[in-house]
């Protein structure tokens, strides 16, 4: 078994090539102890030449593992990604062996910068095969390059490819596996980089001289090799004239975001209903097969209801990811970050931070996973810690329930377009509060706990490309798998635990006769009573306490929990077909307006989502940050709800 590591600049088509080589079957994980994503996969056997397959069949040795290293401009580490790439190439990561071969991918249309990285690789004395990518674009743009001369200059095998459609990839594979692995001896290069202190950030000024020296060599090679430069991409420039226009640029950004939200909330509704229906149907079907008893209750009320309530978010998450990958691959995402940088910079964040925060409006989980594009550690942590304040779609059912129960459906400001609905305005205000709290918390975090030098914006605005549908599909499948795995593990086990808490111990017959709801005597009920002294100051009684417990696992479960607690989910309500209305009536008679407002405020802030906590744990590789997240948001929510409750009680 041999390992090939792929190295290249960001946006050089590395990932497209990786997908092509592995046929999309990849393992996504993390490097130990850090948050850098590790992607690897087996070289597709259909790409292997006959003789290798024959030989392999005899010896059982034809496994080639491809590792896609993070995109990097250089091997002088300034970011975690670069440190990982460099350490990997030097075999310094525990549990990783030294790669047998390095596949350097270079974007032909920006060959100078690519050669800079190649020279650095050669200085490290690792065996390199160079793939010149974007052959299609280079040809279209009438670039002329003397490959043989480049081969001579660098003394490495070179293949021209177009990863997007697989042109030249078969030849590349042949070169890779027949290439005799020798460490190149390059007389051209006399400045070996120090191989010590790998993860340390190289800040010293000699790094400057090394960079200049390397670029001078690149310029010398470039002069000998490139006969004709590629024509500048006129259409990237033409699109940018609109997309980065002082006025139309802003308009187009708003339009893109509008479309994204539209898609997330409207298009996803239909498939989400199908999933909901399918799960209910399957639950009922399975339930009918089983005899009455605790097992049936566990399966139907516990597992199907619990996991189902999370699975309905799958369409939304996939639509969001579809847009993110589309925007990223086409080159628009960097432009959006460029346009948003000033605003995000005001709270001390990178322009890129706006994507995760935006994504969190669907669900904080993909949002937090999207923070991986932020290089700076403090910036990334800040973004992770404020992302749960975005009004995710799981809050909507609760907002909807409470607003339609407590806020009168009247019009205000009737002088404006015939008036605005008060209920809609309250909903809008809750969204707005989420934004304000997120940006405020970001600002405070960057000034206190995560204080540090402002992160740099510095990034490339890549040429626009038509995204590859193949890549898009691979990314979507990958995300769906990650999400489903989580639903199958964390959420499944939580659903079982919650079901247990709500169901046991079973009420005795005396309690049932007195008409008390079963939940009263359960562990969850006891927990509610236990919580009451703590939540009384913010206007909640023990019944809200009970609903908060399962609501902690997933926000929207609060609605069904409240329904259970207020015993409205009885047969009559179901027969009427509108248990929500019954629940709303019950709430209006039981609660004051102040309690409802306080609960809404609680929902704007409180970190009531175990999956978010789990994903923060995974992304930060520590328990410290998820613990901090819980602590700070819960305290914040408590204080805000306390103020809301008392102000509302005094004034309303």
């Amino acid at each position, binding site marked *: 078994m041999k390992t090939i590591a792929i190295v290249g600049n960001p946006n050089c088509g590395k990932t497209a090539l990786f997908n092509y080589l592995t046929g999309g079957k990849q393992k996504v994980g993390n490097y130990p102890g850090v948050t850098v994503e590790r992607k690897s996969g087996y070289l597709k056997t259909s790409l292997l030449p006959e003789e290798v397959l024959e030989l392999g069949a005899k010896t059982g040795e034809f496994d080639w593992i491809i590792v896609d290293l993070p995109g990097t401009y250089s091997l*002088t580490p300034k970011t975690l990604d670069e440190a990982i790439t460099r350490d990997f190439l030097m075999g310094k990561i525990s549990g990783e062996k030294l790669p047998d071969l390095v596949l350097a991918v270079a974007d032909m249309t920006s060959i100078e910068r690519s050669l800079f990285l190649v020279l650095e690789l050669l200085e490290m004395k690792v065996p390199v095969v160079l793939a010149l990518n974007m052959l299609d674009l280079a040809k279209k743009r009438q670039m002329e390059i003397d490959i043989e001369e480049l081969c001579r200059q660098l003394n490495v095998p070179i293949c021209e490819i177009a990863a997007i459609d697989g042109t030249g990839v078969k030849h590349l594979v042949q070169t890779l596996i027949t290439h005799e692995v020798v460490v190149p001896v390059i007389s051209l290069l006399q400045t070996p980089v120090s191989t010590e202190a790998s993860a340390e950030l190289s800040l010293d000024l000699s790094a400057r001289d090394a960079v200049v020296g390397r670029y001078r060599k690149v310029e010398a090679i470039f002069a000998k090799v490139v006969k004709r430069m590629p024509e500048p991409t006129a259409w990237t420039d033409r699109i940018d004239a609109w997309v980065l226009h002082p006025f139309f640029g802003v308009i187009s950004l708003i339009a893109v975001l509008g479309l994204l939200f539209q898609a997330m909330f409207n298009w996803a509704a239909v498939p989400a209903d199908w999933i909901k229906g399918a799960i209910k149907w399957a639950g009922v079907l399975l339930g009918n097969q089983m005899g009455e008893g605790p097992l049936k209750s566990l399966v139907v009320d516990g597992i199907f209801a619990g996991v189902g309530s999370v699975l309905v978010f799958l369409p939304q998450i996939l639509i969001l990811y579809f847009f993110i990958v589309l925007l990223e691959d086409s080159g628009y995402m960097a432009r959006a970050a460029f346009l948003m*940088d*000033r605003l995000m910079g005001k709270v001390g964040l990178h322009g890129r931070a706006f994507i995760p925060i935006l994504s969190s409006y669907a669900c904080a989980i993909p949002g937090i996973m999207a923070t991986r594009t932020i290089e700076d550690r403090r910036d990334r942590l800040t973004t992770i810690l404020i992302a749960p304040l975005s009004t995710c779609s799981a809050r909507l059912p609760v907002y909807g329930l409470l607003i339609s129960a407590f806020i009168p459906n009247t019009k205000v400001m009737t002088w404006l377009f015939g008036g605005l609905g008060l209920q809609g305005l309250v909903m809008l205000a809750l969204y707005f509060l989420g934004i304000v709290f997120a940006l405020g918390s970001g600002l405070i975090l960057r000034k206190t706990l995560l204080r540090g030098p402002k992160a*740099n914006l510095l990034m490339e605005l*890549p040429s626009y490309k038509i995204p590859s549908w193949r890549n898009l599909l691979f990314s979507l499948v990958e995300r769906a798998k990650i999400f489903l795995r989580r639903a199958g593990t964390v959420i499944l086990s939580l659903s079982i635990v919650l079901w247990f808490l709500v169901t046991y111990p079973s009420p005795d017959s005396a309690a049932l006769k007195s008409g008390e709801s079963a939940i009263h005597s359960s562990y969850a009920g006891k927990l509610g009573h236990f919580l009451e002294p703590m939540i009384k100051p913010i206007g909640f009684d023990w019944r809200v306490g009970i609903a908060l417990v399962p609501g902690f696992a997933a926000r929207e479960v609060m609605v069904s929990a409240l329904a259970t607690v207020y015993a409205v989910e009885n047969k009559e309500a179901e027969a009427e077909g509108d248990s929500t209305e019954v629940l709303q009536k019950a709430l209006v008679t039981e609660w004051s307006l102040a309690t409802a407002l306080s609960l809404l405020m609680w929902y704007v802030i409180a970190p009531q989502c175990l999956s978010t906590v789990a994903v923060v744990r995974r992304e930060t590789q520590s328990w410290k940050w998820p613990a901090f997240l819980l602590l700070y948001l819960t305290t914040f929510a408590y204080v805000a709800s306390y103020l809301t409750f008392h102000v509302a009680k005094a004034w309303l």
Partner: protein
Amino acid sequence: MKLRLSKMRKGMAGKISFIESNLDSAPILVRLMELGFIEGVRVELVREAPFTRDPIAVRVKGSLIALRREEGASIEVDVEGYQ
């Protein structure tokens, strides 16, 4: 006319004449240089962000690099067409 990259306006172009080093700017400077910002290289400021004209997008060695104005403060450009 020699101008810092941070002071240039949209449409200005020229060769980099000098790069100031001090330890404060060392990490970002090395990154800028890796992206092609070295003495003698021609750069062109092609875009400015809306409202504040900051960040900016600069063409260098055939690619477009976005940076905040302060990040380009240590790069001096001999701007063409100005005496």
